[in-house]
């Protein structure tokens, strides 16, 4: 009797499971739109468009690899929303270039390299996109850029930050409009004038991996070049949760400035918390670190007020027509949300794509490359120049300071803007310098 009951339990559970999966499958099939719902991918011709342009040619297909689900889904959302805002802006709301409508195909990488490669295969070989863009994850970008080059499809990277993308792994079909890690590290010093750095003592801290080490070294070199002295370089492991011993070392060195370079999610929250807890900031040491996204600001809250450092993008730091447009368009398309962090980068990427196609008169790969190399244009942070040698966009960078937003939370103001001319990092793409 008992085993018979158990048997029927099993079959009921099996049937339920099949029904559930079947329902999900039916609902989930044939979806090339982003899972975040139709609000994330606005259709062309929304109410703001002045008139419907006439179609004079086949659609231009743009493939966007996006972290729609997985550990970095927040970043994926930012990139997606900024990208569409950028397309909107660059096409004056028509979502068409020279009469050819834009068709954006968004595919979810799920933050996994294997899936990213599968989706890139789909976009490049099945959908035959004219331009590929997207992904925040450097390893996916590195894998996909080789594939895109093989197919002769230009690949514009907005967010993934590894130096190798426009460095050691360079190929002519890849462009990056976002900043790389070296730029980020050097920007960390930007809030101080040369004479302010002279004679000061520093400790540089970075996570122990290739990007962190090179970022830390660039920073240290920058300090020494301006007459400062680096007392020590400290490299905690990337997944470090207990920074006590490192902080104790820092306390015993007692520098004027502690600069935490290229910090990941792990460091950005725990490290300052433990710094404060151990009283490391009580001696007047200034803590300099990257300022991240809205979640970061929410987490550090009032405790973060006074922190200074490289700010990739915060809408409050920039006073340009493009930035105002980004804020306005983003809020219209996405329920009043302010653009966050990566949105400032993907907006520029989308704009560059449109400008490239317009200048090239079409989507031919080689023509697009020639159009983008050396291209100078105005966008969110001011003037951008896409360096012909390594396809890296040179751009102004902001140093932000966390201030109170008057509501018990935190926001960012620009403590300094490093102009375009200040970007002097070398070309590391082999054979291109």
């Amino acid at each position: 009797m008992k085993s018979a009951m158990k048997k029927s339990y099993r079959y009921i559970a099996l049937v339920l499971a099949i029904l559930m999966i079947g329902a999900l499958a039916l609902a989930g099939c044939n979806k090339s739109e982003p899972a975040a719902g139709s609000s994330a991918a606005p259709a062309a011709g929304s109410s703001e468009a002045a008139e419907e342009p006439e179609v004079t040619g086949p659609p231009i297909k743009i493939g966007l690899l996006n972290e729609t689900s997985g550990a970095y889904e927040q970043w994926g959302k930012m990139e997606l929303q900024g990208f569409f805002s950028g397309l909107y802006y660059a096409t004056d709301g028509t979502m068409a270039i020279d009469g050819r409508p834009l068709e954006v195909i968004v595919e979810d990488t799920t933050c996994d390299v294997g899936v990213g490669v599968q989706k890139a295969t789909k976009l490049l070989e099945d959908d035959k996109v004219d331009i590929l863009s997207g992904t925040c994850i450097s390893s996916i970008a590195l894998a996909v850029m080789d594939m895109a080059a093989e197919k002769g499809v230009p690949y514009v990277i907005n967010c993934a930050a590894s130096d190798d993308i426009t460095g050691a792994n360079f190929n002519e079909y890849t462009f990056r409009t976002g900043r790389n890690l070296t730029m980020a590290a050097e920007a960390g010093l930007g809030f101080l004038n040369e004479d302010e750095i002279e004679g000061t003592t520093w400790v540089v801290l970075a996570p122990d991996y290739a990007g962190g080490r090179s970022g830390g070294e660039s920073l240290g070199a920058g300090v020494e070049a301006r007459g400062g002295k680096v007392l020590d370089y400290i490299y905690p492991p990337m997944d470090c949760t207990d920074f006590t011993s490192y902080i104790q070392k820092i306390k015993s060195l007692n520098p004027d400035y502690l600069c935490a370079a290229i910090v990941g999610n792990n460091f950005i929250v725990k490290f300052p918390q433990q710094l404060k807890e151990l009283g490391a900031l009580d001696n007047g040491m200034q803590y300099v670190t990257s300022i991240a996204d809205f979640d970061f600001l929410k987490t550090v809250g009032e405790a973060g007020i006074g922190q200074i450092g490289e700010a990739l993008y915060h809408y409050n730091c920039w006073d340009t027509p493009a930035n105002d447009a980004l804020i306005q368009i983003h809020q219209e398309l996405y329920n009043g949300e302010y653009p966050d962090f990566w949105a400032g980068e993907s907006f520029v990427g989308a704009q560059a794509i449109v400008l490239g196609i317009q200048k090239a008169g079409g989507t031919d790969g080689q023509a697009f490359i020639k159009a983008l190399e050396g291209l100078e244009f105005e966008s969110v942070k001011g003037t951008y120049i896409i360096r012909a040698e390594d396809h890296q966009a040179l751009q102004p960078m902001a140093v932000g300071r966390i201030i109170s937003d008057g509501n018990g939370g935190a926001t960012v103001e620009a403590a300094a803007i490093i102009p375009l001319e200040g970007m002097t990092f070398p070309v590391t793409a082999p054979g291109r310098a």
Partner: protein
Amino acid sequence: MKTKNKLVLALALLAAVLVVPALIGSSYIHSIIITICIYSIFAISYDLLLGYTGIVSFGHTVYFGVAAYVVAFTTVKLHWPFLAAVGMVIVVCVAISFIFSLVTLRTKNVYFSMVTMAIGQLFYVMSTKLYAITGGDDGLPGVKSIFPNKTVFYIAAVLILVCVYLFSKRLVNSPAGRVLQGVKENDARIGMLGYNTFKFKSIVIQISGLLAGLAGILYVNLNGIATPSILNSSMTLQILFMVILGGVGTLHGPVIGAAIMQIASIVLSGFTTRWMLIFGIGFVVVMLFFPKGVAGVFDRFSQPNQLRKE
């Protein structure tokens, strides 16, 4: 089901898998099939350990990941030809099997599982720490596929999978394979019968390690990059899920499990960003009610009148 009917069904399935996708012509579908084949090979190698020899290793992904890294490093940084890279993979996998064999001597049961998990994690840590060799968190990109296009690749992958399956089937049904199954039932008793259980276990560890390495070679050919994520404990869990879900100890179960997980993750992730939750729940349900996995459910249907083994 009669053996002859089973054979006909298997051949029909094989023909379908080989021909139909070629007709569809979608590179995306081809790459999904290749991925399923890769994970199937990996899962079969795991089933040899788990299902037939009773060795519960939670560090099996070491072979997979290290093989991928070896191929990436030797072909991209050292510019070795592909065959030389494969040779190196064989050497490395045998060396790693040696380490795991030693561990079986010192620990039993659950201890063994925990230690193998630690070894796996150690390799993961090394892959992120030794970034001069491994490229660190970003991985080692630049691996060129030896197959000219996805279509050739997927046909090769399916054929390789079939060979691996037949080979494994042969192995477990051989006299040596019977000894291994005996080891799973009762290690001590087999020892008392005069068999050198350590030698047998070492051999199976080596074979399954080499097969997992094969899967790793195919993986890096498909994706062009080796990243630390394939050495992570989450990869171990995924393979475990595939084997258990499909049916441990059956060899065709792991293939079913691999296919289900690939397809489910693609379909589910298009629907909701929290699809891992559904996976987890599904897995818990399977563990509670269907310990023999999907293969077990079908076996039940095909043997209605016989006494079922528990």
